[in-house]
């Protein structure tokens, strides 16, 4: 029962979110006083939204930290101890996909892209492409953890391919792709997928969990860049075919 009461220990997350939100509010406050001078009713609505976002993020992060993190680590340990280590690769794929789907900032990016392109690029398309990319790279990350392949073998060729693709991809997709790289490394993916990977690395022994855990985020950050630039190539190819 005591284990379940851990959800009530909310102080740390509360401070974290408040500290992250604080400077932005201060910034907006200064803009409001000196430049914007919006009517009070409008400001009240904005503040309502910020309060909702605050409460929401605290609940979300607390759920991830107290509920998901121990489950992820424990599953990593159990799976790492099982006989068929290869099973970690498809499981990594599945977790990469579903964790990205649950990532808050990914949703916001999709929403903004759909809005800014007036519906030309749908939020759902962004979401699925991004999640598929992360899935493939988390699977690769698991492969790397199980068989001990150095991270450079993935990251350096990956970025070289990205540099090559930059030449051919439509600039809108380039921007969205790199934004997505930053967005995919959110609290859900980092905490849950990282916990899984650290759990596996711990049980496999003879490797440092810290250094093995590092690099997974780099892979997760790279995945959406590659997958969304590929989507961009697909869009321009379809457009050319139609023209």
């Amino acid at each position, binding site marked *: 029962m005591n*284990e379940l009461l851990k*959800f009530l220990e909310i102080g740390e997350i509360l401070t974290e979110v408040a500290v*992250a939100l604080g*400077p*932005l509010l201060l*910034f907006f406050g200064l*803009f409001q006083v000196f430049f*914007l001078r919006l009517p009070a009713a409008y400001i009240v*609505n904005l503040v*309502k*939204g*910020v*309060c*909702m*976002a*605050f*409460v*929401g993020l605290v*609940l*979300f992060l607390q*759920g991830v930290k*107290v*509920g*998901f993190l121990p*489950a992820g680590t424990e*599953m990593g340990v*159990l799976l790492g101890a*099982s006989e068929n280590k290869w099973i970690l690769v498809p499981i990594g794929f599945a977790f990469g996909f*579903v964790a990205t789907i*649950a990532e*808050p*900032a990914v*949703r*916001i990016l999709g929403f*903004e*892209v759909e809005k*800014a392109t007036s519906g030309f690029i749908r939020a759902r398309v962004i979401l699925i492409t991004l999640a598929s990319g992360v899935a493939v790279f988390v699977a690769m990350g698991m492969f790397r953890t199980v068989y001990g392949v150095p*991270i450079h073998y993935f990251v*350096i060729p990956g*970025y*070289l391919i990205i540099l090559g693709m*930059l030449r051919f991809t439509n*600039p*809108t997709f380039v*921007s*969205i792709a*790199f934004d*997505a*790289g*930053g*967005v995919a*490394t*959110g*609290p859900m993916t980092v905490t849950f997928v990282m916990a899984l990977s650290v759990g596996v690395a711990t049980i496999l022994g003879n490797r440092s969990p810290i*250094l093995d855990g*590092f*690099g997974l*985020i*780099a892979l997760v*950050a790279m995945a959406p860049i590659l997958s969304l630039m590929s989507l961009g190539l697909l869009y321009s190819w379809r457009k050319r075919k139609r023209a």
Partner: protein
Amino acid sequence: MLSGLKHSLIEAFQAVTPITAVVIILQVSLVSLPTVTFLRFLIGAFLVMLGLLFFLHGVKIGLLPMGELIGEELPKRGSLWFILLIAFVLGFVVTVAEPDVRVLAHQVDVVSEGNIGRGLLILTVALGVGVFVCMAMLRIVLGTPIAYLFAVGYLLVLLLSAFTHPNFVPIAFDAGGVTTGPVTVPFILALGIGTTSVLGGKSPASDGFGLVGLASIGPVLGVMLLGMIYR
């Protein structure tokens, strides 16, 4: 407002159901987590869903309009220096406030055996983000193709990774992810869209994105530079 809330509810439900389903399937087939851990996961999933509902709705009616309002205001002052100054300060301050940056600072402290203190790391990373957000705004105003900035940025990253201390390479690559938390991302996204919506000859669709991506190069370069000093 109500229909927006309903939309966020559907979104939150769709977001959390898959991950919950995968864990439940694994629980009954391959791994059996201790009952307490599994129960904690289920309660966590409920909190995550509730949290997402509030967060998504709150961001849409609060943080996004705020970022857009500031973005729209910036070009109206008629001074490039003003835009660049605000961009730098915003990037810097937001990074210092980001909780993940402190986790990173701790890791670097450990790997460098205390030679690179937490203050120095946070300062370097925040400067990195500030400079890159500033450059991102400059490129929007000047109309420089964004591919150039990414190409130069990542070529520098690859180059520095050959010269920096090997232990710093994975940390540096991970550092790119830490400055883009769920509070910062919506705000910076909206800032770019707001700015491009009022600048003549720019459109939010083709010029508004990329700030978050550019902002994540700064810390990678910053940590690698620190690794070179450490070496």
